[in-house]
């Protein structure tokens, strides 16, 4: 129950930030993004097909990420998403906002980070 609520609520508020952060250092394909979210959150956050791809297309439509089909030797053709210059600015703003939000939460709730 706890994980389910966390999954739903946090994803709703932070899905864009999660995806933008993951493609910030290098381009990644959709499956890779979903696995990274799941593994780095130790299973607390999961993105399935139905939630991940609409989000990616939305970010692409806004010009924050750009998808490119890449065909590597011995691998199947995949669509890799990389951050655009505009997306980089948005990521910086969202990161800053998230830090401020977390700090505000900490002050109010007294929750301390490990």
């Amino acid at each position: 129950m706890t994980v389910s609520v966390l999954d739903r609520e946090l994803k709703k508020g932070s899905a864009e930030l999660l995806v933008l952060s993951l493609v910030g250092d290098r381009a990644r394909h959709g499956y890779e993004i979903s696995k990274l979210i799941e593994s780095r959150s130790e299973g607390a956050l999961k993105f399935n097909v139905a939630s991940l791809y609409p989000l990616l297309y939305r970010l692409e439509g806004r010009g924050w990420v750009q998808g490119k089909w890449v065909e590597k030797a011995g691998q199947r053709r995949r669509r890799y998403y990389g951050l655009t210059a505009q997306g980089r600015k948005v990521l910086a703003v969202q990161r800053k906002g998230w830090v401020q939000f977390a700090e505000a939460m900490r002050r109010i709730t007294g929750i301390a980070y490990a």
Partner: protein
Amino acid sequence: MHDWKQIVRERLTGLRLEGSREAEIIDEIAQHLEDRYQELLASGVSEPEARRIAIESLEASPSFDEALREARAATAPDLPADDAGYLALLYYDLRMALRGMRLKPGFSFMVIGMLALGIAGNAAIFSTFNSLFLKPLPFPDPTRLIDLDETAPKWNLHYVGMAEPDFIAWRDQNTTFDAIAFFQNPDFNLSKLGPAQHIQGAKVTRDMLNVLGLKLVLGRNFLPEEDRPKGEKVALVGYDLWQRLFSGDRNVLGRFITLDNEPYKTIGVLPREAIFPDRAEIWVPLAPNGAEGLTNGWGGHGIGRLKPGVTVQQAWSICYTCTGH
């Protein structure tokens, strides 16, 4: 290998995306399902179970295709409120507008037509308002310039222009104006200077420059004898016409131009501010003739410059006394 593309295609029926884009989406999601399926197999899950789980991830949201459609419609971005953010929003808006126009061309053209009509109407009204109220006339003391007009009460006409004899009477008995001028606005065919062209001209009495308070760029004003019937045919050339036809040559004085097949000697160049009467590009003497003018009716217009301190009412009462109307 499962035909994931067929499974995805069936699931996304009704998405109605562009053909190539839909194929790309199906390709990409099918790839994801295959990756998931292979991962499950590698972790020891049976084939039927791996297939079920993979498909389940596709079915997890009942409104998947709706979410995809919304995503493809590219919702308005939340961008930082800096210049780059505003530019990106502007770009986004333009893109949405073009997309909307393409989807509903009839409606778009109707809206564009209505906008064009509205803008044209506004521009026309503002142009009039601007010239009447905002942009002052380019003449010294413009508030002392008075339009002179006559009335025809028996025809119930308030403004009928001015008759030559009345102009002569007003001018000769004038005590309230610094100067009075009479003018008409004929068109001329200007020829013998390259291709013939139709230009807006003006016939003015020699006091027009004094009334408007203008000084010539070059040359001299009409002489009294030139502003009489059968006087020499001379012309003052407008500034733009001087630039256009003579390339601003200062030796234009004394050269002849042909107006309506009659030669006129150029005796001066008007300043840029000479936008009255009717932005005429050339002035010639009107040469009023009181006797002949009697038969002309109200064939012209009058303009006067009030003496300092004289009111319009005072000028009007004196003019009325001169002619009785």
